[in-house]
């Protein structure tokens, strides 16, 4: 086993503060403690001032150049950045791991603002597939429509689309809230594991297919329920949460949340029994 104590070189995880002690001959690791989250600081994250504002025109930049420029501006302390002319470019605003007010004056292509942890983003336009994929914290507001896989695998934060979204919204969602003012496509909440999805309009077929956990609220018509997705009664807690959340999301004024349909996992799929595959064969 390598004895890292003799080396000055830190692993990337150590540089990020994931564990603070170097390894010795025997494995001794002190991992990141969630209780100390406030003291946690990503490698490469920046301390910015929201009152320091600037604009960036990305018309003639490709996505790498644009993202690098955003990073440079944050390193100079700019806390409010307005992006002009995004023109549907892919992967803009990804990997931002600090607080920031980021405003896009136009539409984004695929994978916009993915893997973010903390920024408040407003897109005055539309977004393509996989917007905010893997988002961990923060708030993203889309003023128009969104493509498929909206909020795929998000783990936290609020992701809001004021228009309609495509198929597989919230696929593999593991936390946070996705709130949609319009309609949603097929397979919404497919294999979601945690968190909440709120659709004020209609949803397509196979809603909540194979969901492990989490909650989906639908205001309009449902194309069909997916495997193991079942309706559950609305409670006062649900109504209170929805009322508060829609207010924060700036949509659904006067929307009667008490009439929404609540969908949860029936927990009857194969993964919820305690049988080994060989035992299952016997049971069948």
């Amino acid at each position, binding site marked *: 086993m390598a004895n890292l104590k003799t080396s000055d070189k830190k692993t990337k995880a150590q540089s990020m503060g994931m564990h603070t002690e170097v390894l010795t001959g025997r494995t001794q690791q002190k991992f990141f403690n969630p209780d100390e989250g406030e003291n946690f600081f990503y490698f490469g994250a920046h301390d910015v001032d929201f009152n320091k504002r600037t604009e960036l025109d990305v018309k003639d930049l490709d996505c790498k150049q644009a993202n690098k420029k955003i990073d440079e501006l944050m390193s100079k302390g700019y806390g409010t950045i307005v992006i002009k002319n995004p*023109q*549907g*470019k*892919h992967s803009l605003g990804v990997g931002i791991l600090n607080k920031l007010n980021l405003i896009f*004056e*136009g*539409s984004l*292509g*695929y994978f916009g603002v993915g893997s973010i942890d903390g920024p408040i983003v407003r897109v005055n*336009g*539309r977004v*393509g*597939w996989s917007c905010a994929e893997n988002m961990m914290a923060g708030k993203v507001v889309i003023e*128009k*429509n*969104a*493509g*498929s896989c909206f909020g795929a695998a998000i783990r936290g934060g609020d992701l809001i689309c004021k*228009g*309609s979204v*495509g*198929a*597989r919204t919230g696929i593999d969602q593991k936390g946070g809230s996705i709130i949609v003012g319009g*309609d949603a*496509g*097929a*397979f919404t909440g497919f294999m979601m594991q945690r968190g909440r999805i709120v659709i004020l309009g209609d949803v*397509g*077929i196979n809603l909540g297919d194979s969901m492990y956990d989490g909650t989906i609220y639908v205001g309009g018509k449902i194309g069909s329920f997916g495997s193991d997705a079942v309706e559950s009664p609305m409670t006062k807690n649900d109504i209170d949460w929805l009322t508060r959340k829609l207010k924060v999301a700036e949509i659904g004024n006067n929307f009667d949340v008490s009439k929404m349909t609540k969908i949860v996992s029936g927990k009857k799929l194969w993964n919820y029994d305690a049988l080994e595959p060989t035992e299952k064969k016997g049971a069948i």
Partner: protein
Amino acid sequence: MCGIAGLIHRGKSSDVGSELQSMLQALKHRGPDSTGYALYAENDGQNFIMRFKVGENVGEGSTSVNEDESVYDERKKLVDKKLSVLGATVVKEDKLTPYSFRYEIKIDIDLMEFSKAIESINNVEILSIGKSLELVKDLGDATVVSERYGLHKIKGTHGIGHARMATESGVDIKSAHPFWGYPFSDVSVVHNGQLTNYWNNRRALENKGMRFMSECDSELIAVFLAEKMRNGATLEQGMKESLTGLDGVFTYFVATKDSLGMAKDTMAAKPLVLYESDELVAMGSEEIAIRSILPQEIDTYDPFDGEVKVWQI
């Protein structure tokens, strides 16, 4: 992956060739193997335009057999002879590449019978027949193909195109999109996706007399729709039937002399972004295709699963 793009100007002609070139070039990263155009041009409508090939482009990664160019001339002579036998008059002919030709012809026989006769010549394939359809496909990106065939100069009302990343069949012209809706004049199809019941459908359609020129699964869509239309269905009816008749994942466009349509499979597994106004409909696999001709801020949306739409010029 593949990228598809389409546009239709309602009620007027435009620089549809250069517009589609811009849209497809913006999608080059989705498919650099070959590019195809189906442009509906300002022709006088008097004669049929037949685009055909007598060989393959083997210079840019094709898997086809390299042939001496002299065999192309021989095949072309056989085509001319066959046209004469069929009573066709060649009004104008253009040799676009050593293996690709555009003929303006007068014919007065059934198109299926005509096509079968021409394609009975070995290695000759009709890419399209129509009174306004100009179907061109070749290896290379959108700009390369457009410049090779002078497509950026073509004016017309609408068109569809395809940037291909070959996955199910070879890198060659015969597997490239668009596919002509044989035996209907002015019908073309482009597709992004994979079809999983290709052989079942192909066998059934071949038994009904339909013809396949490639082993590309996407060709099935053109033949499927053509067969429905041959039996009296409208284009939109045929497209709606395709949602259950075709298995797999797909977004496809189909164009006729005066219309443009799109269909998306019931799982919405393949992307499509759409812009729609009273004057213009533009759509593509990615928004950047639309932005290449409409850089200003516009409202776009993704059609939902199982959606079929048709627009008229």
